[in-house]
């Protein structure tokens, strides 16, 4: 498996090269640009399934590894590999890419080739973020991602797009440079940029605290956590539909992935000492941001805030482990929380993507995202409302949908850690139901609000296909999450050991 076909490189470079081709070949021929893009993402997705079929469930070691020296002077390597933590995220990325291209099919009219090209390039870079095992390589992908996203939001976004995209870029850039300094410091101490070496090295407590905080800034901005979340509603609202999907489904996961790949294994002692900080911020996100979502009048903004609230579960689940072990000594309980967090990431990828696509469907027809502009959509778009309500229910965390599994696992773990954590986390079931269902009522049900709604046409075949695919995943993961948890199991076990072994 080590020497075979370089599957990870292919997944990174195929979309990037495809994107460049689209950029140049599609300038005079938008149809060609679209088909070329679809072919690229389709092929990438099919190839990425190899990761699933060829994955060895019994080991927590890196698989599908590739390692080539890049800058020998500084011991920087082009080093790729996946384990149970990153593999599902890569699949989520390649899958979302297909939806993204399909969803833009006849919506984007202006400079199609630049739009499609930017998304394809983004897709390759995102796989790179999840597959990189060298911290500099990771950073290169992490930062390079900002460039296409900056252009996409700024060019095809809504009214305040320029403000939103500058805010997005500078916030994330500011967060990540601290991470870079932490990498450089660890290289200075260890002589290696390898993430695996970072995980194995000993670091003193003071240094760990600083490194942990540097990581926290980088990942908290990305995920995003309260109080550095303010870029997200702006970026989400102003981004075009596909941009929101990529942001919510994948880019937010990078923050969560950062915690499991860097913070917990590299600075376990600092994580233990400062877990109250992350837990506190997560609970604020879950409760306070949930309440903020209630007050929104813009559908996209509402879903954006709900994303922040849901991502709070990810950080909560990851950092609960210390309290659980302290209180109950049960490794199993801790693992439950961590696995819950990981499942929540994947599930949120599907649900938030679906929610934004659903809003995109409405926006394409009415060109407004104001809740008050709608009402009684079910009368004119029954098929659409069926899907939209399903996704909304999943967003609430209805049993039987994927939204339930992760949240339930984390809430269960939270009760083991501290009864109050559990109570606060569980309020999301009420608040989440509140804002989501209230929106559903106002937008979809009731009498037809105005003549614009009356003229709405139901889903076309393309949209129907996208919605069906997503619905299948949301329900499948909700009914039978076993395979997903199985894939992660060994890696989460190892992560737990790393996170609880002192490195002083």
């Amino acid at each position: 498996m080590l020497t075979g076909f370089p599957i990870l490189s292919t997944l990174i470079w195929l979309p990037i090269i495809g994107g460049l081709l689209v950029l140049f070949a599609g300038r005079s021929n938008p149809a060609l640009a679209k088909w070329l893009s679809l072919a690229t993402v389709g092929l990438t997705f099919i190839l990425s399934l190899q990761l699933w079929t060829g994955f060895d469930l019994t080991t927590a070691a890196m698989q599908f590894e590739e390692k080539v020296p890049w800058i020998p002077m500084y011991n920087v390597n082009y080093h790729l590999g996946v384990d149970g933590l990153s593999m599902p995220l890569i699949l989520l990325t390649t899958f979302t890419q297909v939806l993204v291209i399909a969803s833009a099919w006849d919506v984007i009219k202006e400079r199609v080739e630049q739009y499609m090209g930017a998304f394809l390039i983004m897709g390759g870079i995102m796989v790179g973020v999840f597959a990189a095992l060298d911290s500099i390589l990771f950073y290169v992908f992490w930062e390079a991602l900002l460039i296409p996203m900056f252009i996409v939001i700024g060019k095809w976004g809504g009214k305040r797009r320029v403000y939103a995209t500058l805010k997005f870029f500078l916030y994330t850039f500011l967060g990540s440079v601290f991470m870079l300094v932490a990498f450089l410091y660890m290289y200075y101490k260890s002589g290696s940029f390898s993430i695996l070496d970072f995980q194995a090295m000993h670091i003193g407590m003071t240094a760990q605290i600083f490194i942990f905080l540097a990581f926290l800034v980088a990942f908290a901005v990305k995920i995003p956590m309260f109080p550095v979340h303010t870029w997200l509603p702006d970026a989400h609202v102003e981004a075009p539909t596909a941009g929101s999907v990529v942001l919510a489904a994948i880019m937010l996961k990078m923050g969560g992935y950062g915690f499991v790949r860097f913070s917990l294994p590299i600075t376990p002692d600092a994580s233990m000492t400062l877990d109250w900080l992350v837990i506190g911020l997560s609970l604020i996100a879950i409760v306070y941001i949930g309440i903020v979502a209630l007050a929104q009048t813009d559908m996209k903004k509402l879903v954006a805030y709900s994303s922040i609230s849901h991502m709070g579960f990810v950080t909560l689940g990851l950092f609960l482990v210390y309290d659980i072990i302290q209180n109950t000594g049960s490794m199993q309980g801790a693992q439950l929380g961590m696995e819950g967090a990981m499942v929540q990431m994947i599930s949120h990828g599907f649900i938030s993507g679906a929610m934004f696509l659903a809003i995109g469907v409405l926006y394409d027809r009415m060109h407004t995202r104001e809740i008050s502009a709608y009402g009684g959509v079910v009368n004119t778009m029954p098929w659409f409302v069926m899907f939209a309500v399903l996704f909304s229910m999943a967003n609430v965390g209805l049993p039987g949908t994927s939204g339930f599994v992760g949240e339930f696992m984390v809430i269960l773990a939270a009760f083991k850690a501290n009864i109050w954590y559990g109570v606060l986390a569980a309020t999301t079931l009420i608040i989440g139901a509140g804002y989501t269902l209230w929106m559903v009522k106002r937008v979809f049900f009731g009498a037809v609000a105005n003549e614009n709604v009356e003229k709405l046409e139901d889903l076309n075949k393309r949209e129907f296909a996208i919605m069906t695919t997503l619905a299948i995943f949301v329900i499948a993961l909700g009914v039978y999450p076993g395979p997903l948890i199985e894939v992660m199991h060994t890696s989460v076990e190892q992560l737990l050991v790393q996170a609880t072994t002192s490195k002083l």
Partner: protein
Amino acid sequence: MNFVIPSFAPAIPEMVLLALISILLIADTIWSKRFQFATYYATQISLLVVAFLIFTSFSLEQVITFDGSFVRDSFSDVLKLFTIVVSMGVFFFSREYLMQQKFYSGEFFVLGLFSVLGMFVMISAHNMITMYLGLEIMSLAIYAMIALRKDSAHALEAALKYFVLGALATGMLLYGFSMIYGATGSITFPEIAKIISEGNADSTVLAFGVVFVVIGLAFKLGAVPFHMWVPDVYQGSPTGVTLFLGTAPKIAAFAMLYRLLAEGMPNLVHDWQQLIIMLSILSMVVGAIVAIVQTNLKRMLAYSGIGHMGFLLLGVIAATPEGYAASMFYVVVYAMTGVAGFGMIVALSRTGNEFDLIENFKGLNARNPWLALMMMIIMFSMAGIPPFIGFWAKIIVIEEVVQAGFTWIAVVAVIAAVISAFYYLKVVKAMYFDQPDDTTKLEPVSSNLAVGVSTAALLLLVLGVMPSSMIEMFFLSLSAT
């Protein structure tokens, strides 16, 4: 004392260059009437010849000649080669610019060659007198180049400003030299270092000398608080000249810094390190913040250049061979990016429209998507965003300053990098997100210029993806000495 004929071999490239310049100076007056571009082509060929001479006689050994006043080592060879590369790029764009703005003349290139000769002398200087000579050869030629545009008040003002402040800087430098000479009794760098390390020098006089030398260097680099001339001169000069004075001389200035501080006064590192830290931090911060409010792109790039000088000094703070190598890499990358950036302005400028305001770039993506993409690469490279070469330049100097134990300076540096990203983004924003004010069709850019700009910009990308061999070259050239 018997007169011994010194070995001329190490200085052959400089002598050949001087000979070629002298021929060109005369030839230009003769043939300029009949063959318009003869001097330009002859200039480029001369540079190629010199590059060939340096390249074929490249060696890692250090050779000193002319009674200890001239040195040739791998450090000087590498820097000279890159000076030639950068200068050739500059002359390529300058010629197009001079033609466009209708003040083409052969003297421009002869003066440029003189300036390059001065840089070579600076790079190879092994004592303070040679250093001063090289500096003056380089600077005087540039003053004249700025003033070539006789009909522009801005250009004349810039030339005068540059001349007066340049003279002041040189005065400071010479004053510092005299004090160092007074304290150590020597003008040759290694000897100065030796006498200082033996403790035979008056430390008070020496400290003053160091301060004046550092001030002089800061003037030449354009580091805060000695940066006031930079924006005015960059903006006032014709773009074709800004292109030159903003790029190649920085390489020579770095060589001067290295020769004086690292070779001449390594034992005083604790004295000058403090100064360099202050210069570096102030430059990064002021460069980043003040550039934000600029509306003129040349002026913005001037402030951005000030910021870049702050980053360059990070490697000098480390005061290790690796640190100097990182700075050397930084300055070369900076010069190459500068050529691309100013080259873009040249490519877009037209008679009567210098195209140097940020608002000129509004909607460029709609008018010429390819050039907009190239400009975006240049801007992101300057901002230090991967995968462009500017990222590696920044990460390496920051890494060296962390290695030296100054993690807090690294933190300041990255924050400055984030602030400075904002104004580079402003240009990208103008190109991609704004509607053009000027809806007239953009005159097609000559294929010559389009190819030149694209090559320069794509080089930033290609080197950014494969930076290894270039970084290694700089490290080798410094570890050999």
